[in-house]
Each structure stands twice: as C-alpha cells, then as structure tokens.
C-alpha cells in the first residue's frame, strides 16, 4: 500500500513551496482545482511557475495576488465569456512571463516526464514562432529518416494540483470524463495533490484514471472546482464568472 495522505485544505500552505513549478489540471472553466488555488493565493508562497493547457480563473487568482513569475500555457481565457484582463495586463506591463505552449508541446513535455525520457520528438511546432520562443524546443535530426524535427524537453513539475470527481480509500483517482493529460501530469510530477468531490470505499480497477502510486495527497472538498464546473456534479457558474470578469 502506498503512503497517500488524506489532508485538509488549510494544510496546502505547508506543502507548496515558493519558486516551484506547479502543473494544474482542468481546461478553461472546467474542473479547475479552485479551492486549492485559493489556499495558495492566501499563503506566503510566491515566485511560482504555472504549467497548464488552458487556464482561466486558476491563473487569474494567483496572478492577482502576485504569486506568479511565469505562466506556461497554450491558452488563458474564458472561451465564450471573455478574456483574462488580469493576465493580459500582467503580460503587457512585464509583470509576468508568458511562455506559449501548443497542445502537443504541453502533452509531450508531460509524457516525457512521465516516461522518464529526456525529450520526445515531433514534426509539429518547428515551423511556428512558438519554436523560437519556447526554450523547451530544439531542432533535432531523425537519425533514421534524416527529417528535421522538434525535440520537446520533458518536464517534471514540483507539484501537480488536480480536481477529480472521485477517489477511493486506497488513494486511486477517477476522472469521470475525458481527461486533459492529468494522468501524465501526475506521473511526471514530484508531489501530486488532488481535491475530490467524494471519497468512496473502493473504485473498480477499470474505473481508475490515476492509480494511487501517483497520488500523494487527497483533499475531500465538495465543490472543489467551483465556480468552474465538475462534470456529473455541477456545471460552471457562468453568472459568477461573468461577475469576476466585470471587476
């Protein structure tokens, strides 16, 4: 049995350290670990680098409290609801560094970190300017075909914070909808923290998205993603988010 601990939200401040890289699960206004984010925003932690596919309120809440040095993401915004004025202003004024990812770049950095290899090649990215600005991308020649490829450097984030629908008492996690590479994220990260809507006695093996081997802390917190949505539990609170954007 693995040494997973069930903790409370207020213990987050003793776990997350300054100057670290934190990978965040979810997608825009869906299944973001907002309860954990709020704890980090209120803690003494600072100088954080954030790694996520598509951010929204998660990024805003931390940038607003000056906790962030760098955002690594393929998108930050609220889709149909609007843009992030907070991130836009912070980047335009030079307050934070934005390092753009593509979806494949986001995925392969985590996949490489999960698999324990130094890099993974792709034929994407190399013809775009993201290749020029992202230090995790370097040119490489396929030793078999001689094709020019983009080598994507693996990443092992210090922490990952992920919200999921369920955990069981053994520390297994169920993400009860299509995931956004949270499995690779947990496998690649050094310390893995999950907030969950519910802890059940035992998940069936085929219900398990992330096995307990890749889980360090579980925080039971109902509506832990609120006001972003958590499928099968609650949809995003559009009214709340629109009010946040109107601020």
């Amino acid at each position: 049995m693995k040494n997973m601990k069930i903790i409370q939200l207020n213990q987050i401040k003793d776990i997350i350290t300054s100057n670290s890289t934190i990978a965040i699960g979810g997608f825009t206004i869906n299944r973001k670990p907002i309860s954990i984010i709020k704890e980090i925003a209120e803690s003494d932690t600072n100088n954080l680098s954030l790694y996520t596919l598509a951010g929204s309120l998660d990024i805003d809440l931390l940038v607003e409290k000056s906790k962030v040095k760098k955002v690594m993401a393929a998108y930050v915004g609220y889709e149909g609801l609007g843009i992030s004025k907070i991130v836009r202003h912070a980047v335009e004024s030079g307050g934070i560094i934005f390092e753009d990812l593509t979806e494949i770049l986001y995925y392969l950095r985590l996949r490489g970190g999960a698999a324990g290899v130094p890099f993974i090649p792709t034929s994407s990215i190399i013809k775009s300017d993201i290749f020029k600005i992202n230090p995790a991308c370097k040119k490489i020649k396929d030793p078999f075909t001689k094709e020019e490829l983009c080598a994507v450097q693996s990443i092992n984030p210090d922490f990952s914070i992920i919200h999921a629908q369920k955990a069981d008492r053994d520390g297994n996690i169920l993400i009860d909808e299509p995931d956004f590479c949270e499995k690779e994220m947990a496998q690649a990260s050094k310390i893995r923290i999950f907030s969950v809507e519910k802890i059940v006695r035992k998940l069936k093996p085929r219900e398990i998205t992330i096995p307990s081997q890749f889980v360090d802390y579980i925080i039971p917190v109902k509506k832990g993603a609120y006001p972003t949505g958590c499928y099968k539990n609650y949809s995003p609170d559009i009214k709340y988010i629109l009010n946040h954007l109107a601020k």
Partner: protein
Amino acid sequence: MTNNISDFLIANLEKEIEEGMTIVQGTSTFIPLIATKLAQKGKKINLIGGFMMNPDINPIIPSTFSSYNYSNGKSYLGLSGFLDMLQNKKVDLEFLRPAQVDEFGNINNTVIGEYKKPTVRLPGGMGVDDVMTFIKKIILYIPNHSRKVFVKKVDFVTAHGWDKGKGPDKIITNMCVFEFPNKKVTLTAINPEYTIEDVKRETGFKFRISADMKNMIVPDEEMKKRIQESDPLNIRDLEIKEKREEVLKKFR
C-alpha cells in the same frame, strides 16, 4: 448586412463537412460547433468533441470543452488519445479562427506587437500549429473581415502558412472565400451582398481572383430555422462582437 453573420458562416462551413470525415471540435469555436451539429444530422461523420468520440452536441455552456455540451459519447479519448490520433494523421478537418492572418495563411493568436512586451496579449493559440501540421483540411473562418484581421505580415506565427509548408486550405469570411491554388491566395467565392472592391478595401494584402468566381451560400428561411433549433441559446453569436452581450444576458 441583412443576413445574420453567424448563420451565414454556419451554412458555408457546414458545406465543407463531407461524408466520412473525422472532424475535431476546437476551443471556443462556437460557430463550427453548430455547423457540425447540423452536419451530424444529414451526414455520416466522426466527431471528436470534448475529447469524446461521436457525442451528440447540446450547446448550453459557453465553453466548447465543457462535457455538459456533449451527450452519448461513444468512448473517451482524452487529450492524449486525440493527440496520438492527430499525429498519426487520422483527423480530416478542423475549423480555426485567427486573430490575424497574412497572405500565406500564417495565423497569429498569440500577441500583437513584440512577443516579450506585447501591445496586446491574446489568449493563445491552443494547438493551431499542431493541427496545421497534421490535419488534412484546415479551414479558417472570420466573422469580421477587415484589415485588422487580414494583415500583410502577422506579428507572430502561431501556426505556419504556405510559405513554410502546408497552410490552411480555405478562409471563409462574412464577405468571401479565399483558397490557395499553387500556394497563392485567391478569391474564389463572394457573399452576394459584397463586391470584389469591398473585399479589396478590407484586406491588407493583394490577392488573385479566380476565373471561376462563385457565390457563397445565403441561408434560406428553412436553414435559419434549423440553425435556431440546433442552438436555441444562440451560443453561436458569442463570436459576433455586436451580439455577445445579448447572449451573455441570458446567463447573468
């Protein structure tokens, strides 16, 4: 314009979705979401929506990746499953919306101005260069054809165009359609409400004009009715600047 722009674009995008295609739904692209929903009714297609295989589309949340917008998904791919399919060239079509596009079809959705100190930080490009690299047919759509969007040179290449490899196949706007025969941007169809002179005035680069110019589809009352039935909350109008507030009011 007497026609509703989102309905006009939906009619012209839907036409591009062919029987047997595997199509992927992008981020925050609501006009294609409704076009795909219409296509699902008449054509056998494979849809990757919310990283599920072949779900039904119920547009109720203004996020194209909310699982609440999809039902009856046949299986879950997840992001990694989709990206593996993508890199293996198993995806046929995606519709993208650029903030800027140039004569080669290079797309910018990242920054206006210098990358490190931009005048405008845009939300970001998601996987636009990934899909440009691996998807067979990429169609750009633009509801607000203007020189602000159609620029001589993009400030940042978020996805590459025909000067660097295979670029977008078509650009479909509220005014016209551009294609790239021999990698040269060419006007091939026009919205009958506009003239070629109108298009020239609103485009920041020179383009060729096809000898075989066509008229774009203007949706009839029946088509408009089908669109409205598919999208009763008018989620599609979130992409139309003048109509956004009207749609968001329903959620306030």
